[in-house]
């Protein structure tokens, strides 16, 4: 980072946040603080929905996924457009008509307090955990940049978001989301342009992608139901996950409730449905471009510079340098094979291309082996060290290979993305705690001003809790985008099941739903533990439809018993 990067980083970051706060300077009531007075046009709703889902995790982890495992992850989003349609038809008109602040408010009208509080608490649990992870992602960037302690960085970043959310409220969040998505799209286009310009002159994009395909990175669509991401789990499991995320997770419901009218909210959802898959495709593709770049260039033995520095200062320094030397030697051989493959593909020599692709894959496997050995050393040196580097691939590439000035802007945009997503979550956590838990348990506020003060105090309380979660999960290190979705999959199916009963099974009453939700939740966690975690035979996306089916099935049986 040079001075110019710092200046542009601070300018970009502060101008996006201050603009949001400036836009919301007049809101003094609770409706304004939580729902922006329900005054937003459709494109603000759309951008806000996208920005809430796209935290820094998206921009760090998704290219990392592309680099390490190829395009397969894009299938995760296939169910999203269908979910948007179902939401527009069912959820939006009901929520708008009842003028609810939160999704769970509706459950009380349909069932009773118990159901409302139980689903609200499930939401608070899942969103609280996931938001902790969402703070951790940008904290990694900042701590890597400044060489700061990760714990202090978590606290600092959490503090900035907290300040922004309590001062600005929802309208500020919404305006910031709009700016942020604009900046982000432009920044990512420029980044991919730079990456492509770094590729060898005699390599066309198509041929580069063909080479990535030979290394198994262009696995965009898989029909094999046993693959981790495939068409079926993406369409069905993804549909249920996205439906419950957008329909029952207050951080998203809070976004489309800001819409001026039913049709503005609907159009915003449709916009999200059209743009999401291409956007995600493009972000993962950037990771594949980085992979192609490293075919022709020296690849770091390990992508997390902080852990590497720790190793070089430890008793294992010599062992690390030996591995690094082996890796550099392997990089050279890999480059030769890649150059050969490029020429063979250009000449249309299929036999030679297949032979060289085999050779290239051999060197790539060796590279993975060396990386695993470095990871082993990291753990040996410090059992609490972070031995996964997937989230650092894109970051270290940006820092080392992209031009100065642009680095500053890109980093500001990535951190801003996080602030935007976390701000939505914080506002939702506070709104749900107050309207669905505190007020339902007979708490009365003397005036609206008191209620607004309490909401702000709760925002602060949740902010502090989330920072604590971020510090606690600091050392998990696995792919964060996956971890967030696994946590979501524990709870979403059950919550969605409750809402589906509310909308479509008019005969099922409150007691049956309540006990079915409790039993369903326990069963989903057990199924996850035995079949996903222990035996590894059930991809986690399936937990979403399983949760829905369990809740509906159990509620149905219980209701029959009552009769």
């Amino acid at each position, binding site marked *: 980072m040079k001075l110019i990067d710092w200046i542009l980083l601070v300018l970009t970051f502060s101008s996006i946040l201050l603009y949001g706060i400036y836009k919301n300077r007049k809101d003094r009531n609770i409706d304004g603080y939580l729902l922006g007075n329900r005054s937003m046009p459709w494109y603000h709703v759309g951008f806000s929905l996208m920005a809430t889902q796209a935290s820094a995790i998206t921009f760090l982890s998704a290219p990392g996924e592309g680099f390490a495992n190829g395009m397969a992850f894009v299938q995760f989003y296939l169910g999203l457009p269908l979910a948007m349609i179902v939401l*527009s038809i069912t959820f939006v008109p009901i929520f708008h008509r009842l003028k609810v602040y939160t999704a769970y408010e509706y459950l009380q009208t349909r069932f009773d307090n118990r159901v409302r509080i139980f689903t609200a608490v499930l939401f608070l649990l899942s969103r609280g955990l996931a938001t902790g992870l969402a703070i951790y992602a940008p904290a990694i960037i900042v701590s890597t940049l400044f060489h700061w302690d990760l714990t202090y960085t978590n606290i600092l970043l959490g503090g900035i978001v907290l300040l922004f959310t309590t001062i600005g409220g929802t309208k500020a969040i919404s305006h910031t989301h709009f700016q942020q998505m604009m900046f982000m799209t432009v920044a990512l286009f420029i980044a991919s342009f730079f990456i492509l310009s770094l590729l060898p002159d005699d390599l066309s994009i198509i041929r580069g992608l063909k080479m990535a395909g030979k290394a198994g990175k*262009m696995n965009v669509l898989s029909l094999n139901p046993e693959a981790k991401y495939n068409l079926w789990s993406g369409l069905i499991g993804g549909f249920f996950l996205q439906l419950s995320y957008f329909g029952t997770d207050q951080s998203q419901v809070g976004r489309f409730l800001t819409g001026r009218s039913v049709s503005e909210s609907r159009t915003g959802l449709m916009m999200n449905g059209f743009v999401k898959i*291409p956007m995600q495709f493009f972000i993962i593709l950037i990771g594949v471009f980085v992979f192609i770049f490293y075919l022709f260039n020296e690849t770091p033995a390990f992508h997390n510079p902080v852990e590497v520095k720790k190793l070089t200062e430890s008793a294992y320094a010599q062992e690390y340098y030996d591995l690094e030397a082996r890796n550099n030697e392997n990089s050279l051989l890999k480059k030769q094979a890649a150059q050969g493959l490029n020429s063979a593909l250009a000449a249309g020599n299929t036999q030679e291309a297949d032979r060289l692709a085999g050779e290239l894959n051999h060197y790539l496997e060796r590279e993975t082996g060396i990386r695993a050995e470095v990871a082993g050393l990291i753990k040996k040196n410090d059992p609490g060290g972070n031995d996964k580097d997937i989230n650092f691939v894109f970051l270290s590439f940006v820092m080392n290979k992209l031009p100065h000035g642009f680095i500053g802007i890109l980093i500001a945009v990535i951190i801003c993305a996080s602030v935007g997503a976390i701000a939505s979550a914080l506002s939702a956590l506070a709104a749900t705690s107050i309207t669905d838990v505190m007020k339902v348990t007979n708490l009365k506020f003397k005036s609206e001003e008191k209620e607004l003060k309490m909401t702000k105090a709760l925002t602060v309380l949740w902010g502090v809790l989330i920072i604590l979660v971020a510090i606690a999960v600091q050392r998990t290190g696995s792919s964060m985008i996956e971890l967030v979705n696994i946590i979501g999959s524990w709870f979403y199916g059950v919550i969605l099941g409750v809402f589906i009963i509310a909308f479509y099974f008019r005969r099922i009453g409150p007691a049956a739903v309540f006990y079915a939700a409790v039993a369903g939740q326990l069963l989903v966690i057990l199924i996850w533990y035995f079949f996903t975690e222990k035996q590894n035979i059930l991809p986690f996306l399936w937990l979403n439809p399983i949760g829905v089916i369990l809740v509906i099935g159990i509620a149905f049986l219980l209701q029959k018993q009552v009769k």
Partner: protein
Amino acid sequence: MNKERKIQRVYWWQIGFLVFQIFAFYFLTVYFS
């Protein structure tokens, strides 16, 4: 055309675009493998 009809049209476009993307992804997978 009223708003309801208009949004229903958008739903069909959404489904059509999804099907198109699935075919496009299939094509990309086969072409680049």
